[in-house]
């Protein structure tokens, strides 16, 4: 795909040479972008995601309350002063959701980057070298599947809290740690997909040509093979980002996720789960934001998948 930088057809070229009025051939990425921008759900997803990023980045600077402010009046339902209401300790939920959205997105982004990097490298190695490298990667995959994520999270969350810190009444920031745990435990699908693609790509003529011209394994893998898997990798990366948002909330729910002083949407929901009937806004506002993040990212992923799919014919290529 990426090695065909233009989609010039013989017909198009000769027609242009004959001076006929015909559309210019488009570059591959232009084709993909055009298809993507025709995908309504994906565009909505992009816009919502963009707004959420702005919300999380600019919101805390502009909003009058801070997430750590207390005693603003307990359990006030949503009003003009507190659009999302206030919680048990008189904290402004809007400020908390602003900060939680930021943390949730950060975690998801870091987790998705790690997932993708590990998955691509291991998948490429397994597919390119086959034999024992392939077996080793597949055994490693099995191993990561066997060891429960919750256990890893539990072990690490204990080790970061030194007794001294606990005595001072607080822990250190741990969102990065949660992101890394999620990143290192969810690369398997990407690895398997990339491996499958590399297995077939390594037999193609252009790879043989690259090797014949003296390209070493690193060059062949990174310059020639991997660019051709980028479509699938990008789609997988978006999906794994949506999943990381949800997984983080699951970890928070069982008490193994983000901890004070950090926060996340998952933590907000878990903290407020018993308020669902009496003070429903405390549950539903963070919930809506989680769904918005995850849904918008999923829509973007779906749009990208369709846009990259060469069989997709609804838009002229």
């Amino acid at each position, binding site marked *: 795909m990426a090695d065909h930088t233009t989609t010039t057809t013989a017909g198009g070229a000769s027609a242009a040479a004959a001076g006929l009025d015909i559309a210019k051939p488009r570059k591959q990425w232009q084709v993909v972008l055009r298809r993507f921008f025709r995908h309504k759900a994906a565009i909505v997803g992009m816009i919502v995601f963009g707004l959420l990023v702005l919300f999380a980045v600019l919101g805390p600077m502009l909003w009058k309350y801070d997430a750590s402010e207390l005693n603003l009046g307990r359990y006030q339902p949503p009003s003009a002063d507190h659009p999302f209401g206030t919680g048990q300790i008189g904290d402004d939920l809007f400020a908390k959701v602003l900060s939680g959205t930021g943390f949730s997105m950060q975690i998801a982004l870091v987790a998705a980057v790690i997932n993708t990097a590990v998955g691509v490298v291991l998948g490429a190695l397994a597919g390119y070298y086959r034999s024992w490298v392939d077996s080793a990667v597949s055994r490693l995959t*099995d191993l990561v599947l*066997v060891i429960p994520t919750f*256990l890893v999270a539990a072990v690490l969350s204990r080790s970061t809290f030194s007794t001294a810190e606990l005595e001072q009444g607080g822990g250190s920031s741990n969102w990065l740690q949660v992101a890394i745990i999620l990143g290192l435990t969810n690369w398997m699908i990407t690895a398997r997909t990339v491996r499958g693609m590399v297995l077939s790509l390594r037999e193609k003529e252009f790879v043989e040509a690259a090797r014949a011209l003296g390209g070493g394994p690193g060059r062949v893998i990174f310059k020639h093979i991997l660019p051709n898997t980028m479509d699938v990798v990008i789609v997988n990366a978006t999906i794994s980002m949506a999943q990381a948002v949800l997984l983080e909330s699951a970890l928070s729910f069982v008490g193994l996720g983000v901890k004070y002083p950090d926060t996340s949407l998952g933590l907000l929901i878990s903290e407020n789960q018993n308020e669902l009937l009496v003070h429903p806004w405390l549950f539903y506002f963070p919930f809506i934001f989680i769904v918005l993040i995850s849904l918008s990212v999923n829509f973007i992923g779906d749009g990208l998948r369709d846009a990259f799919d060469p069989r997709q014919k609804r838009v002229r290529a």
Partner: protein
Amino acid sequence: MFRYIVRRILITIPLLIVGSFLVFALVQGMGDPLGEWKLQKPREPDEIALAYERIGYNDPFLERYVNWVGGFVQGDWGTTIIPGSGVKDVQDEVFHGLWTTFRLVIGAEILALLIGMAVGVIGAVRQYSIFDYTATGVAFALFSMPVFCIGLILKSAAIPFNNFLESIGMDRWITTAGPPPGGFSGSFGHQITQYIGTFLLPTLALLAIQFALYSRFQRASMLDVLGQDYVRTAQAKGLSSGRVIFRHAFRNGLIPVLTVFAVNFGSVMGGAVITETVFNWSGMGRLLIRSIYEKEVFMVLGVVMVTAVIVVIANLIADILYARLDPRIRLG
């Protein structure tokens, strides 16, 4: 085939050994398993020494691991480590949890598969119809919700419903405390009502997520098959569209979904952690979480080993199924 199965099973033995060793080390890394217990009330030094002795904590790390492996392969999976009257046998607990999870999961998984298949096929046959858009939208929405939120919302909806039943003079029907330990009692009709009241919410919660997964898979694989030449040939020779869809396309479109089902079922059997926690079912998932919190090393190991074996078997079944259904695939 037989050789293939034997080989697949044999290569999982090193996996189980390395996996259990890492789990053992991880739980060890969480610190003193009796720390909580010692803090509960003043303990005699003898009592403490005895407690450590009983779980073999005085032996070197490696020796303890080897002892556990030795016991495990002979069917002695150890007991919980907190001394006293609450000591439980790991094997009993794990199999009890497995049975609870199985009862919870089996109905939801099969329903999700059937509904997901039906919706996926219709969505593919009528691609870009209102039905397709609606089904896609619902699946995406369900995909994008944290599982525990679906559970919590269902639970919150059940309370007013129960209150309503009570106000018109009926029993509170929907329960969220898992199956009663002694089994269901009363008349047959009463048992049926109790059964449904107990299973309804967790089944719906599991169904919601799994349905989204299966319907998307079925739709994608069905679209793939419908676009292939042999389907066009079947249409071209004048077969009715129902015959083409069900006899020709559906059979092949089924293959990926069934293998996904096998793999997925295996992993869910290892514990639907969140659903079990929300609805208080003492299945594998909750057992795992609780044991991790209590640093119950043998219990964690028991759960992990049983889960790993189930996942391995499920994957094996998926691969065999794939090869059976699709003659182009050769196992080797």
